[in-house]
């Protein structure tokens, strides 16, 4: 299956909140990009980080491992990590792996911002 390179764009949402918009294929190979995006969001003073999965096309189990590592980084910095835009398929994977107990899931960005 063709790999669609992932991009991670950091977008300011509100004072103290930033989104990381993820597009393409999420695998362990994009760990460096995701961590760089997190650094950028942290530098902007974000205490709430919204992972926006609306543009994600595919994720493998390496992607789940990467999200766990990101979650630990956020916890260390007292940041809240939430997710929005997951399809039903990936929402179920978050539930199956019990990641949803640590990363709250929201339908869209507005709902995610309410977590601030």
């Amino acid at each position, binding site marked *: *299956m063709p790999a669609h390179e992932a991009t991670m764009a950091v977008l300011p949402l509100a004072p103290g909140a930033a989104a990381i918009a993820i597009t393409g294929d999420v695998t362990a190979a994009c760990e460096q990009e995701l961590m760089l995006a997190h650094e950028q969001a942290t530098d902007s003073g974000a205490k709430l980080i919204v992972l926006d999965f609306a543009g994600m096309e595919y994720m*493998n189990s390496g992607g789940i491992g990467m999200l766990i590592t990101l979650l*630990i980084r956020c916890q260390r910095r007292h940041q809240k990590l939430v997710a929005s835009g997951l399809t039903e*398929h990936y929402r179920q994977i978050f539930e199956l792996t*019990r990641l949803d107990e640590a990363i709250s899931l929201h339908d869209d960005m507005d709902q995610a911002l309410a977590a601030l």
Partner: protein
Amino acid sequence: MDPRSPEQNGQRDIENWAAKVDRLHVADDLRTYGYNIEGRRIAGPMNGFGRLWQRTYTADIGTAATPERVVADWRAHFGDYWPRMGRFHGTISAINPGDVAPLTAVGVTTGIMVLYADDTSFTFLTPEGHMFAALITFSCESSTSGGTIEQIRMLLRSSDPIFEALWPLTRRGEDIFWPRTLKNLAAAHGVHNVTVQEHTECIDRRRLWKNWSNVRYNAGLRTIGHTFTVPFRPHTGKSAN
């Protein structure tokens, strides 16, 4: 209705992932060994107790076989490549997403669930009570020189305070078990005396005290209990310890 295409909708990989389940269930023919899995929940790395480690074992087997071929073989004969200190009680068919399989390692009977599987990798999650709350990925990839690299990568925490106290021992056990597995897999493809590299990184030094009560599911204690109560249970014709 979601306007996105099936591919954008995450359908491209739907068959690679296990379907969502709340509790694990063991197939009837594996029930004898499934007493520490049946009815348990999955316990990922955020549901354990101890420090979080990322451990990676790799072995370069050169051009003996493609990553796809090695992984297909690994999925079909997973337990056969284990050293004798462990026993995988899976079925004879290949590892597939959603499979739940009991295992016995260093005398402790527990199990795994297959979370994900594709042509070049497969991933296990552990149930409550397993020595580790872990996400373990077995994979093969092409090296820059065109060869094949076998890899086992795990994100794991000890499940409870007892297993955390035993971490120096279990870590040493892992350092024997998984390199031997990679060597056995390499040997099956005609590569002998392969060198296994190991890398360990502590991702989170905190212990998750809110999960101390995981000890009630401790598979080690329950295996001992199960073994000692064998004479008092109806005979099933098969020993399970």
